[in-house]
């Protein structure tokens, strides 16, 4: 009986990962890359806020999220607020909310990746490396974290040698990214 339930749980997880993967590897334009977190029912206002977020109406979205926050303290809600602040380049605020999100869901690799971006913008490079690495450890197939880690080493730490393996891994997982080839050439040139 127990094995039967375990198998059902495993199938559900695989399905969820596939769906999530699809969302995180959406196109690079700004049309609105998102993720369906889980099957839980969201409050109507939450759904409304997401719609606002998709339309980059950050301030409105922010207010709606905060209005439901007292009764809906969910990791995803805090992650969305962090995204709003990240887009507004309010990295300090973004850091507060993404940390809240991680506190409620430590296995959330998406939040860990956002956390890494926030930390990088705050100049906390070592902590950013840690956050990206955690994201990868939670989900080894999450391409954003590989790319972000490679850019951090490449652009901000000026360590092309360390950046290269992550570009390669990214390329391996997201082969349709056209820029990656050029970047890898440049990195390899600098290594030489």
């Amino acid at each position, binding site marked *: 009986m127990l094995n039967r339930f375990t198998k059902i749980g495993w199938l559900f997880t695989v399905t969820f990962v596939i769906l999530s993967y699809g969302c995180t590897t959406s196109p690079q334009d700004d049309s609105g890359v998102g993720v*369906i977190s889980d099957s839980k029912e969201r409050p109507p206002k939450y759904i409304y806020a*997401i719609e606002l977020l998709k339309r980059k109406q950050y301030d409105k979205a922010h207010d709606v999220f905060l209005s439901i926050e007292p009764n809906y303290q969910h990791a995803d809600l805090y992650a969305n607020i962090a995204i709003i602040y990240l887009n507004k380049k309010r990295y300090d605020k973004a850091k507060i909310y993404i940390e809240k999100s991680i506190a409620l869901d430590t296995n959330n690799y998406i939040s860990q990746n956002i956390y890494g971006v926030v930390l990088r913008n705050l100049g906390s490079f070592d902590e950013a490396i840690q956050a990206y690495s955690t994201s990868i450890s939670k989900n080894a197939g999450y391409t954003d974290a590989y790319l972000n880690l490679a850019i951090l080493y490449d*652009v901000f730490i000026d360590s092309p040698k360390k950046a290269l393996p992550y570009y390669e891994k990214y390329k391996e997982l997201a082969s349709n990214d056209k820029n990656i080839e050029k970047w890898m050439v440049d990195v390899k040139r600098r290594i030489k």
Partner: protein
Amino acid sequence: MNVIKHLVHVFLIAIIVQGCSSYKYNTISDIENIDSNVKQDLKVSLTSVPLTEDIVIGKYRDLLGENLNIKNKKQVLKRYGDLLIDKGERLIISDNTISYQTGKSMIIDAIDTFKIYINKFSSDPKNDYIFYQISRGYELIEKPELAYQYLTYLTDNYPGSKYYQETQFRRGEFLFTRRHFSNSGIAYKSILGDQYRHTNLYSKTIYKYAWVNFKQEKYDNAINYFIKLVDGYYTDGKVNDYEITQSSTKGEKAAVADVLRAISLSFSYMGGSENIYIYTKNKEYSPLLYSSLALLYKNKKRYVDSINTYSGFIDKNKSSRHAYKFHQDIISLYKLAGINNAIIPEKVKFINNFGPGTEYQKNINKDEWDNLNKSIENNVIDLATYYHANSKDKDKAINAAKSEKWYRYYLTYYSDSPQAQKLNYKLAELLNDTKQYVKAINEYEKSAYQYTNKDSKAAYAAISLYKKPKLNDHRWRNRLKNSHLKFFNEFSTHKYSDNVLLNASQYQFDDKEYSDAFASTSILVNKNGVNKKVYSSAILIYAHSAFELEKYTEAEAGYNKAYAVSNKKLKKSLRDKAAASAYLSAKNLFNTNPKQAIQELTRVGSVYKGTEVAATAGFDAASLLMKQNNNRQAESILLGLKNTKSKGFDKKNLHEKLAFIYLNNQQYTKAANEFVYIYNQEKNREKKREIMLNISDLYKKDGNREKALKIQKEYVKVYKKPLNDYVDTMYEISTYYKDAKQVKNEKQWLNKVINIKKSYKKLPAGVKHTIARANLRYANFDYKKFESVKLKRPLKKSLSRKKKLMKDLLKKYDEAISAGEFSLTTEATFNIANIYYTLSKDILNSERPKGLNDDEYEQYTIILEDQAYPFEEKAIDIHKKNMTLAKKGGINKWISRSHDTLSKLQPVRYNKHEKFVHYVE
């Protein structure tokens, strides 16, 4: 017939004589029993014929006329004489005159009859009886001399007569009455031989003989014989060793008293009591003689002699069981004699000799001791009261001490006496009168509490006296309080009991024994019928005590009750105290039940409105509300208090709290306004300085830059130190002008900042940074100038000018970098990079020489590109360098801008952006 008649007479006589012969007329007293003889005669007669005494006498008279033989004649004469003398004696001693005369005639007849007998029978050896009867007859008809002659004849001629003793005694008496004491003495002495010792007359003879000696002033002899009598009385029990016994008859008592009096007189004539000892040293009854003599003196008002007599006995018989009585008599005699100054010393002596605990007590029996002890007790009282009465006169201290001594003596030995309590009280009064207050209090309290019946008067006297000794030590205070409390407990119905308890509570309160004071006054304030004055004081102490004990609820109630009964003068302070109690009660709830504390404080503020405490309560309520984050209500209360004149709270603190609330509410201007008040109240220059900085910050935070500027300008005028804040404030002013786009003013204030370094050889790091910032900003003005200089013909000239500007700029930016501050460094670095990039672009866009053809133009452009390119490369390198600074301080505006620039200049390398989800559904 005659013969028969004669025979009858003879027979009758024979019978009578026979009958008479059995009578014994041996003594004078026997003669006096004539009635019985007559009766006997009559009795005999009655056997034949009824006869009377007169008939019998008549019959004998008739017989004398008969011719009788000698024997009968002697009998008839003798009998006839006896009958006459007996009858005559009876008639004489009656009070009837006729009878006296008849009796006298009959006695004369009797004497004549006896004389006939003598004449007829002169040789009869028993005629001593006849002579005796004749002398008797003469005595009866009051012819003592004739009687004495016949008595003397009898004693001379009949020394062996049985009437000898009596006859001599009578002779002695005859002579004694005629003061022939010598001869009288001879007569008496003749019958003092041993053969008379057991006769009735013997003691009488001794008595008379003693008197004879006494009369002849032979007191020594007199005493010796009197004492013989006393010996007899003592042996017979008529006297004991001290007095005549009560069992003696009245006559005996009189006789004994007479003897004792004679002895006393003898001693007195011999010079007093000194001789008594000689005569009586072995006599057990010597006290009797001393006493007798003393009494004799007393009766003669010779009181001193009487006293000496008693003293004489006491001196020689200290342990006698009668000694104390004599001493009592001595004291009485002094009184009688009016020798008052001797009474007191004598009483002292009396007590010392015979009082409790002396040897004397052991030597007497219980009954006598009880008697003596009563006397001692009375004398002790006398002494104590005597000295007490004299304790106010001269020698008062000595007398007071003596009085105290005797009171204490009394209380030692007679503490169970009914009078002990009264005397104890008197002792206390004595001590009080002589200002010995502590001792007086001790005795008042003993009088009050140590006897069966408790004495409220004494207890109250003790209480009244406690303050007089002026003792303030702990033990004395405790005594004082205990005495008051004891009084109240013992005499709760006493009219002053409430006052006493009130005083006790006052003492307890003064001594900070608040629990006790509270307990005491609780009784009074809850008791019915306590008078208003006592109640008013009690409720006040009650409230004060409760307050000290932190029983604030009770204290508040107490103060309110006190308020209700107090005069106008006190009302304000009582209301204040009630308010304070209520306030403190609320304060106790601060930590445990802050909500209730707020309610209570609010009540205090409302009920006791107008008091200082009400304001304090309001203030504290606001403080508590603030702790509970109820700043809105707190603000309302604080604003209500803002304009009160109350000193019940720290006004400055009120403004601080308001400032805090406003800071919390981000109402910075309001907060700043409160800080302005705080600034004005603050005395400490350094604190004032900090507050001023704070005020300017707050105005600035609220966007009120003008007010902030005003404060900052004031600040830099007043506070040149510390240099950091001084320079920073000037820098802030420059920033204000920057934002206000008042370039002149901005430059002026930046210059002030920059010029600081001219006044100081060494500057703190913070100041260096600010100067660096100022430099940087000032450099930005030059940068614009640098940008505005276009490279025109002649290129050399314009380029030279631009390079000069560039050189100055680089110098300023280098200075900014040298400050070592991250933001300055990155900004300066970015600007340096931009200078090179601007120069590169300006070279490329420089004015071309006139007259160039296309080739020349192209050639010239290539040359320019060659000239410009190194500057662009230099700019890229510097931006890259700026990027690397992110490792040290993170990414700021200037690093981001360098990154943006590089993204454009080297997109493959730098135009890369992280990926992250744009939302989570």
